């Protein structure tokens, strides 16, 4: 139905898309006399099937939040600071846009690098590049720290995926490490909770949850294994050791057929190549000779996975043998000392896992036979949000690869960033082309850094926005010869979401002009000079599809009512600014790429297009000329279940192998090391390893002894992936949940330190301090403190504030030393000392 016809009705249900987290569940909104009175999951959608999480239901209270930005606002109080009233006055759009454009135009003419950018609206990834079209390479917000700088690039490198999750429909033994899938977050949580509950209760799937705090997932698990933060890799490598050295359980068939485990590796760690063809070589154990990996007539069964082969006096080993050798000292006993999980438990879980994998068995799906491996390790930020996080991620992939479960029924399944599913292109050496950069193209290396987040020195990372503040404040360290003057924010809250909060405050203090596009005021907009009101998700158009497990297609987000206030779609605002500042052609060129436009739908460089027009062209480009926005208004969404062929072994269908030996990562690191050496830079590339191992020099575990407790932040379903703590229904619900009300400390640890529930504590890390109310509990590892993000707010917004604000990010560092060299992920746990301020 056309928009005007729909909203003219007295009583209707409008199909749309949720945006209360980064994902995009399909919803229906009930509107009576122009007022949204209920939001439910769309029962027709094959993903969330009518289900919705608490945040989704609370969308009404965000829509009607009286603290929404209703008109453009101008600050009249020149003094800025936390808790300082900006003394907003409403102004016209013309004044707001012309003032903003004038300031930014001047900057762009002088040096566009003087603009910091914090645009990371996950539903509108197409606008993230506005800064680069302007000419600014900077990123002053976090994405990687939130989800997975160390997660996504490794997924993309393995199988062209952006995310991954175990196969809900077939898995029978699910190990979950530092992840909320199926319980509290990630990949359309309402849909995932249902699938996980069905697997647990109907199919009797065994669930083992490994994490330092008993989350809702651990509460439902058959077994909770409390672990020391930042040591998950040790646990997993102890399991790999058990499988390879003690149980001899691994999927040789999968490795031979689908991975580079058979490729011979030279003593320097590089692949052994045919000197003429440059093709990787394998060892034919029948011919007793090295041959090209794709040599005709060679039987794969005869190709060696293990052994050492001397060729012209040099010893070569198949990659699988290299992996095995690299882990020969990763015994459960040694790994147990690192991670605190008993060695016997590591062995037992490894055995159960290996046996549950049913190596050798197959299953028929959609008329085709696939390997059936109903055991898998699923992981997310808790497991990999650390120094050496890239190696953490590789270890999690390795244990899955060992049992041959990647992208097969029952196993560990890649999930695309959007409707494109996995990006399967041919790379070198018969391998899948590694895709570490699905969010934006990589930054070109330069010996002199040009982005404050140093993206040019993280060739497979995701923007380490947490480095920006440190580099702005200490420009001489890496040789920045410019300083930022302004900041543009869109749907982001860098003051709240970045680590090393005190440094972020210092950067905000330096900035002469801040413009923010948002729907509510927050910790960052409190510092802005101009605020421009965006439309809320219930008032705007978009085709959206974020990390869809099991399904593909788009959910059409449409305005369920007429916009309430004088807001404008953020895309339109940014287009207007691009035009006024003078870079519309660059902006339109970027949109051609980021909205997947086909040549016949390309935007004219010098014409301003509305968000509606761009969305219409996007629809036509993807679905054909007869499926523009009108089609979506009539028919709704295009989401459908993925076919087995789309989900399973997509790389094999194109004859491509995936890595078990990550030589791409080693080669990337070697290349970077060489460039840095030539540039005379001291830069640590030691984590670019082809095989994940444990490395003892981890800074988190080597902090001065007075910092005797680990500390980390957590979220649950009510607050995950979103700014929902200022929504009164959410605030009310979490106020009844003990986990969100104080600093969780194990009762025995508290007893030793003389701490009682309710005591006000001071938590000090080497990087900052916070206060918090002690909450004694049993659900946390005795060496840890766990802090909910539900007590972290301090903005002018009156909802969601606690008497004691405990903002975990203040305790974290934000510099290179605490950043994973391979991926740019920040170490997201820290250690603290605690003292009682008052009882």
């Amino acid at each position: 139905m056309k928009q005007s016809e729909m909203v003219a009705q007295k009583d209707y249900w409008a199909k749309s898309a949720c945006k209360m987290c980064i994902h995009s569940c399909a919803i229906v909104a009930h509107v009576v006399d122009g007022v949204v009175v209920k939001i439910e999951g769309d029962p027709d959608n094959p993903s969330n099937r009518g289900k919705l999480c608490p945040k989704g239901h609370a969308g009404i209270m965000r829509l009607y939040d009286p603290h929404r930005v209703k008109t453009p606002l101008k600050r009249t109080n020149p003094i800025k600071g936390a808790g300082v009233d900006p003394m907003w006055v409403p102004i016209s759009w013309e004044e707001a846009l012309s003032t903003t454009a004038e300031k930014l135009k001047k900057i762009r003419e002088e040096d566009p690098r003087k603009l910091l950018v914090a645009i990371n609206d996950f539903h509108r990834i197409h606008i993230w590049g506005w800064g680069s079209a302007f000419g600014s390479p900077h990123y002053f917000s976090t994405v990687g720290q939130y989800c997975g700088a160390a997660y996504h690039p490794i997924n993309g490198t393995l199988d062209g995926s952006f995310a991954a999750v175990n196969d809900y429909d077939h898995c029978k033994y699910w190990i979950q490490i530092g992840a909320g899938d199926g319980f509290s977050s990630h990949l359309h949580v309402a849909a995932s909770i249902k699938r996980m509950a069905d697997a647990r209760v109907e199919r009797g799937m065994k669930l083992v949850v490994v994490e330092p705090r008993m989350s809702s997932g651990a509460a439902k698990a058959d077994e909770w294994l409390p672990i020391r933060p930042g040591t998950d890799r040790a646990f997993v490598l102890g399991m790999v050791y058990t499988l390879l050295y003690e149980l001899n359980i691994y999927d040789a068939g999968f490795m031979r057929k689908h991975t580079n485990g058979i490729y011979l590796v030279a003593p320097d760690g590089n692949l052994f190549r045919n000197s003429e063809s440059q093709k990787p070589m394998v060892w034919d154990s029948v011919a007793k000779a090295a041959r090209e990996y794709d040599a005709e007539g060679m039987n794969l069964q005869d190709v060696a996975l293990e052994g050492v082969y001397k060729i012209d006096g040099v010893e070569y080993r198949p990659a699988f043998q290299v992996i095995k050798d690299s882990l020969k000292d990763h015994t459960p006993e040694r790994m147990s000392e690192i991670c605190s999980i008993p060695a016997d438990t590591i062995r037992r879980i490894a055995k159960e896992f290996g046996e549950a994998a049913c190596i050798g068995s197959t299953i028929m799906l959609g008329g085709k036979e696939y390997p059936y491996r109903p055991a898998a390790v699923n992981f997310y930020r808790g497991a990999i949000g650390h120094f050496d996080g890239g190696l953490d991620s590789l270890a999690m992939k390795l244990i899955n690869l060992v049992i041959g479960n990647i992208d097969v029924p029952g196993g560990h399944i890649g999930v695309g960033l959007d409707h494109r599913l996995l990006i399967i292109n041919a790379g070198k050496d018969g391998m899948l082309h590694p895709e570490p950069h699905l969010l934006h193209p990589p930054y070109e290396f330069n010996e002199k850094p040009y982005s404050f987040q140093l993206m040019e020195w993280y060739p497979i990372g995701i923007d380490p926005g947490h480095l920006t503040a440190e580099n702005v404040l200490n420009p001489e360290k890496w040789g920045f010869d410019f300083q930022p003057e302004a900041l543009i924010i869109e749907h982001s809250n860098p003051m709240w979401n970045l680590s090393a909060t005190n440094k972020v405050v210092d950067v905000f203090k330096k900035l002469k002009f801040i413009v923010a596009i948002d729907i509510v005021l927050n910790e960052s907009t409190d510092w802005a000079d101009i605020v421009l009101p965006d439309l809320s998700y219930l008032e705007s158009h978009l085709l959206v599809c974020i990390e869809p497990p099991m399904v593909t297609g788009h959910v059409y987000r449409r305005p369920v009512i007429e916009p309430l206030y004088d807001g404008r779609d953020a895309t339109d605002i940014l287009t207007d600014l691009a035009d006024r500042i003078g870079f519309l052609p660059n902006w339109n060129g970027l949109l051609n790429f980021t909205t997947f436009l086909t040549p016949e739908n390309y935007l004219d460089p010098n014409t301003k297009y509305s968000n509606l027009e761009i969305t219409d062209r996007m629809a036509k480009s993807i679905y054909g000329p007869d499926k523009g926005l009108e089609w979506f208004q009539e028919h709704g969404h295009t989401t459908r279940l993925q076919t087995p062929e789309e989900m399973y072994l997509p790389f094999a269908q194109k004859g491509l192998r995936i890595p078990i030996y990550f030589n791409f990562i080693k080669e990337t690191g070697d290349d970077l090391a060489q460039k840095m050496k030539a540039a005379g830079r001291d830069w640590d590339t030691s984590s670019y390893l082809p095989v994940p191992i444990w490395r003892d020099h981890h800074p988190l575990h080597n902090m001065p002894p007075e910092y005797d407790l680990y500390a980390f932040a957590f979220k649950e379903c009510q607050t995950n992936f979103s700014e929902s703590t200022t929504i009164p229904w959410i605030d009310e619900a979490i106020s009844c949940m003990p986990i969100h009300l104080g600093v969780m400390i194990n009762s025995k640890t508290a007893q030793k330190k003389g701490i009682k529930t309710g005591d006000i504590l001071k938590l000090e890390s080497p990087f900052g301090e916070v206060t918090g109310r002690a909450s004694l509990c049993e659900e946390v590892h005795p060496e840890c403190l766990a802090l909910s993000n539900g007590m972290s707010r301090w903005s002018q917004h009156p909802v969601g504030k606690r008497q004691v604000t405990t903002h975990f990010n203040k305790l974290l560092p934000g510099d290179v030393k605490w950043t994973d060299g391979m991926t740019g992920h920040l170490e997201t746990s820290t250690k603290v000392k605690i003292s009682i301020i008052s009882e």
Partner: protein
Amino acid sequence: MHYGMVIDLKRCVGCQACTIACKAENGTPPGVMYTKVLDQVSGEFPNVRKQFVPVLCNHCVNAPCQRVCPTGATYKREDGLVLVDHDKCMGCRACYVACPYNNRIFLKRGKLKSGYHGKVFTPYEAVKYKEHQDGIVEKCKFCSHRVDQGLKPACVQTCPADARIFGDLDDPESKVSRLIRSRGGVQPLSEDSTEPSVYYLS
């Protein structure tokens, strides 16, 4: 016909979608929750057990709230729903005291004069608070307005884990009856002879 609810504690993940869906459906004012999910922790580290227990009015067959109501405001429908007639309730709170589950809520006089953001109502609150009355006792209605249209209660409709199942306890072939039989559904505090219409599976 005897409507009842089965709550599968194995399925419930404590996400509170039901809590918020109930608020949205019924437009309950601040502090009023017809349903919520309790977190129950037992044991000592590392042998800890955490259970999420959704609670709501049990729509008892022998409802003490109904017995003690002096005005007949609390009444029982033939389909088992225990409801409160707002016009008859005088707010004496006898039912509030009598309910062994603490599932009745008294809306103080003036309670509806302010909402989640003080005295200025959101458009949603302006519509929904008209469905309430201050000075009386309220509680979960099993979403009688939805049930009468053939819909499931809001908490059941949304539960992402399908932990809440609604149906006819009189029909031996209904899903609720089959689940109670096959998995041994337990009524809360059934020794009080209240005969709740809510059953828990563990």
